[in-house]
């Protein structure tokens, strides 16, 4: 998604060097994807091995001075999530951004995710409702493909901020396929205002919320 496939990870004195994905070197990335011999290689690991790698990603990567560390996790409330929280807990502030799609089936799982946050003492920065409606490019009719509003209701019931809804946007999906910078290259696309606004809210509200 960040056009960094096939890049190699190097070692330096202070640890693994993360991969810079932009010319300005403002975004660095670490992923198990960089450690695989081929993109088709399956990582068939049980929990303990995954936990060990996650600890290494936090402790052994030379991240340098960072304003934000964004940690993308798989779905669920299991090994990876517990390992990430444990490894990052010494480094505050630490918070969670919880993403759902609008329909009840997703919200049903995300309720449990919010419980995980509560039980592990992970402060929730807010809830984002993704894939929220699709505006037909032919006739401008908006269809709620995956229903609508579930994320907002969930945030309200859980007493956490609702950060916004992001609509389905084929330009966004396509730009991720090609590793383009959607925010820079598609400012007129339907998902842009929502993503921009959510990012602004995170930057302005997260520090106070997490202090």
């Amino acid at each position: 998604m960040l056009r960094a496939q096939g890049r190699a990870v190097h070692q330096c004195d202070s640890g693994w060097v993360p991969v810079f994905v932009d010319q300005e070197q403002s975004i660095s990335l670490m992923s198990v994807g960089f450690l695989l011999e081929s993109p088709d290689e399956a990582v068939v690991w049980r929990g303990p091995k995954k936990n060990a790698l996650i600890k290494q990603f936090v402790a052994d990567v030379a991240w340098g001075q960072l304003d934000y560390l964004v940690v993308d996790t798989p779905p669920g409330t299991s090994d990876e999530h517990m390992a990430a929280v444990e490894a990052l807990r010494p480094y505050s502030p630490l918070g969670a951004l919880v993403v759902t799609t609008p329909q009840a089936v997703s919200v049903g799982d995300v309720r449990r995710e919010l419980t995980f946050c509560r039980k592990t003492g992970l402060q929730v920065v807010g809830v984002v409702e993704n894939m929220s409606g699709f505006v037909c490019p032919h006739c401008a009719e908006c269809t709620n493909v995956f229903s609508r509003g579930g994320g907002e209701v969930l945030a309200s019931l859980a007493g956490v901020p609702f950060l916004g809804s992001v609509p389905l946007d084929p330009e966004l999906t396509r730009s991720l396929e090609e590793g383009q910078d959607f925010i820079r290259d598609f400012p007129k696309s339907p998902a842009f205002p929502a993503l921009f606004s959510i990012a602004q809210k995170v930057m302005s509200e997260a520090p106070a919320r997490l202090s």
Partner: protein
Amino acid sequence: MEEVPQGCPGTGSAQAGRGASCQGCPNQRLCASGAGAAPDPAIEEIKEKMKTVKHKILVLSGKGGVGKSTFSAHLAHGLAEDENTQVALLDIDICGPSIPKIMGLEGEQVHQSGSGWSPVFVEDNLGVMSVGFLLSSPDDAVIWRGPKKNGMIKQFLRDVDWGEVDYLIVDTPPGTSDEHLSAVQYLSAAHIDGAVIITTPQEVSLQDVRKEINFCHKVKLPIIGVVENMSVFICPKCKKETQIFPPTTGGAEVMCQDLKIPLLGKVPLDPHIGIQEFCGHHPPKEEHFLSS
């Protein structure tokens, strides 16, 4: 279910019982003696239990959110349309058990009988089991590490009284980890017919499907085929098609041709599915799946 120490090297590991994190674990002596590396007796017990189950199908995906549980539920309903076919749906997504909601069975509880746990029946010929039925609230989180999840899966396969079943559909979480390894391991003596892999059309999803296919090869799990979900969106107003998840590398069709794996079908995005799932109903679209 026993707690395992954090950092447990795994009972089959060479470090079993000998690692630093093994100190204090009640099973340390057992593991150090090498007993942990012996085949799990549950595998034979599950083989016996599965003698009354004719076909076992695993539903896999590389990615989350591609519609795996939706597909599993509709496949189960579709097969159960014939009253003479006995169908069982087992949900082994321990952290995100969606099947009870999709099947309209939220709030149902599991009962014990002399012959084991009874599945929850949504029709006379369609029984369902999920960790969702063991949780007392929809907010309960299952915050379990791998070994505890594996134990649950073992119990589901060994202790549920499925009865005579024509098709057992096993819905899995996304990925290639504990749940998938355990399902394949515990069913290893019982013959799994194969796996159906669900994907959406874009390359980001297909990339994970290729990993899933590699997993199947590694564990010698036959692949029945691939289903491409969310293929195309048809606007309910103007009826024109849009590809919301563009198949930039040809979608599942090209991938299946390259890898010589059957493409079982393509399912369009349908807003009614979301609404129906909320109500616990199923639309009469099972022909899509049955024809495969």
